[in-house]
């Protein structure tokens, strides 16, 4: 039982990270109907920028407590990502706003590749270790362990989602966003500066990406130029699973995906190698050592879920009818 609980905790934390990134996808989609595939790369740039600042601070020998150093790194990463997000929208998407839907999608992929390679040139190909600056305190709950960091990640993701929901539903800016989502032309006639609203959406989404990037790098203690790709894909899957464009859906989708992955990877070896391979070694010889369908299929679960959702409930679990999409 404690093991199941532990897997559940692993899954929820993983899911919270996915959710945090998925919020960025969903915000942009909610307003523009565009899947910003470069979002994962913004996460990566955020992580690596913060890492560079943190490395510089550590090397300079200024006696600062660990969390402050990380906070300074984050403080540097957020404006960089905001500027990046703004630039991406201005350069790659705005000129194509009235182009067929496929065109901005292809640009998005292009921007993603561009950013990856630029990061590779700047930061190199190797894995970079993220200094262990945050104290890791473990708590024990019914035999399972939870660290402060994990609790912080989940709480932060929840807080960010709540704040976004508040902004979208309760503020002037949110009303402008919803209006733009419904009909940009009419919103413009009503005095909404559509370009500004869209720019702000990208800026806010990119700031979230910076936060997510720093969290991921600190959580795993590792960062590299390729880290945004898989994370972006998973987060996109989470957004679709919950209903893309729907803020609560992104959160739900992220958490579900994290738990599915965690439980799947945690138990598939027991199932394939332990059960089928043990009791039916003749029928399933390939299962005997678990190598045929083992835990390295962790990533497959996410995309298997994506296919199921697209087939049976294309609009996602909570549907696309979030307020932003109206």
């Amino acid at each position: 039982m404690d093991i199941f609980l532990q897997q559940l905790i692993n899954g929820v934390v993983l899911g919270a990270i996915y959710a945090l990134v998925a919020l960025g996808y969903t915000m942009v989609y909610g307003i523009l109907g565009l899947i910003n595939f470069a979002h994962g790369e913004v996460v990566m740039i955020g992580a690596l920028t913060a890492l560079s600042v943190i490395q510089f601070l550590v090397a300079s020998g200024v006696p600062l407590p660990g969390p402050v150093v990380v906070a300074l790194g984050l403080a540097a990463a957020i404006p960089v990502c905001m500027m990046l997000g703004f630039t991406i929208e201005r350069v790659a998407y705005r000129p194509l706003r009235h182009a067929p839907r496929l065109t901005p999608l292809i640009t998005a992929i292009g921007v993603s590749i561009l950013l990856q390679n630029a990061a590779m040139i700047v930061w190199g190909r190797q894995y970079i270790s993220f200094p262990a600056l945050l104290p890791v305190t473990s708590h024990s709950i019914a035999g399972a362990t939870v660290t402060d960091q994990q609790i912080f990640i989940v709480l932060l993701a929840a807080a960010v989602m709540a704040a976004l929901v508040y902004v979208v539903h309760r503020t002037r800016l949110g009303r402008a966003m919803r209006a733009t989502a419904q009909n940009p032309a009419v919103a413009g006639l009503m005095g909404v500066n559509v370009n500004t609203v869209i720019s702000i959406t990208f800026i806010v989404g990119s700031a979230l990406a910076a936060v997510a990037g720093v969290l991921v790098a600190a959580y795993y203690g590792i960062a590299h130029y390729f880290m945004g790709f898989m994370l972006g894909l998973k987060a996109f899957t989470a957004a679709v699973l919950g209903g893309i464009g729907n803020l609560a859906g992104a959160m739900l989708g992220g958490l579900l995906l994290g738990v599915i992955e965690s439980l799947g990877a945690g138990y598939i070896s027991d199932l394939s190698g332990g059960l089928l391979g043990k009791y039916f070694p003749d029928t399933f010889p390939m299962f005997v050592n678990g190598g045929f369908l083992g835990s390295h299929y962790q990533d497959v679960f996410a995309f298997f879920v994506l296919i199921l959702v697209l087939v049976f409930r294309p609009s996602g679990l909570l549907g696309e009818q979030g307020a932003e999409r109206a």
Partner: protein
Amino acid sequence: MQLVNRFALGLTFGFALIVGGCGKQEPPPAPKTEAPKPPPEVVVRIGSVAPLTGPQSHLGKDNDNGARLAVEEVNAQGWVLNGAKVRFELLSEDDQADPKTGTIVAQKLVDNKVAAVIGHLNSGTTIPASKIYHDAGVAQISPSATNPKYTEQGYKGAFRVMANDVQQGKVLGEYAVGKLGAKRIAIIDDRSAYGQGLADEFEKAAKAAGAAVVGREYTTDRATDFRAILTSIKAKKPDLVFYGGMDAQAGPMVAQLKTLGLKARYLGGDGVQTAEFIKLAGPAREGVIASSPGLPLDKMPGGKGFTEKFTAKYGQIQIYAPYAYDATMTLIEAMKNANSTDPAKFIPVLARISRQGVTGPIAFDEKGDLRNGPITLYHAKESKWEPLETVGGEAAPAVGAPAGAACCPPAKSGGEAAPAVAAPAGTPAATGEKAPAAAPAPAAPEKK
């Protein structure tokens, strides 16, 4: 600064053009114009391939310099074959650690009529290139490729001067059970050719030694989250976790293992025994044990002399330079013994060679693997890899060597004694038993 760089670049290009031009125009047997001495000179070309650019370039350059040092020494000594002075010429190629580029440069070397190739550095490039060398009848000695497949293809001219992964997995398995007393073992691998091969060999050896494999989990060489499989492993209560894979995964994995409260010893192969792992794992690295083929530099029979020669010319040794040097020297000795620079004649001699190299005795088995290659176990202590003991490497396997009593790293404190490297009695260069205790382990390989 910019100007200087451009100037240097221009110089380099110019120089490369001149050298390249010379290389192409010069037919192998032609006497050099600026050396109009009466005895004719024969140029024998030896290829040297390693990644000279990219993230592994420091390792590649190291290999290349090792081979170059050997060639320069032999040329300085001089060797006369059939009345003609033989001059060896080293052709360095960059395979970028990329299998595709590896085969391209291999073909280029074959077209340039090399007699033999020292290389490549990585298993991934060595294996596809070996077919090209084999088809052309060229000898190949890899200083550092450890994947067993390289010598399992039945190529007569393919050799290596380093223990392979089968030998390494076996040593690790026996060490885990015999020395660390592991009874319940969980194994993780990254499904790469290297990781899977090493883990399979480890499993075989550990089972043969009497341990139970309670869990076998898998990950990929891109993964960063291992909590699910580690939790699954935790449920099986192992006392040792073995990982077959690279440092980029092992680092975060060890850290996650610690936060999950899994109290098992962590053991890995040479993919883990790297300086990068020390950085990536953070404080969780302490007590991790990993192996690496070969002896620590300061325990090599000719380590001291080689270090002096090498550092005077090229600076710090990364890791494989002594192996590249030995590979080149062994090759040339085989040519001398065979009295021929024709691969068809010297390859059979090379296969039977037995000589004392810088890294240890060099002799090949029927496949071309190093006979009884030594494997050294290290443990991470105070952010460094410290040698624990060496298995094999001499005529008599040194598994049960006397110093082995200090098997458990945590029991050793401070670093007051020399590491328990089981140097068998009579090793000529077992000098300075005390001094190496503080010496850092040699820089480690990055990707193999």
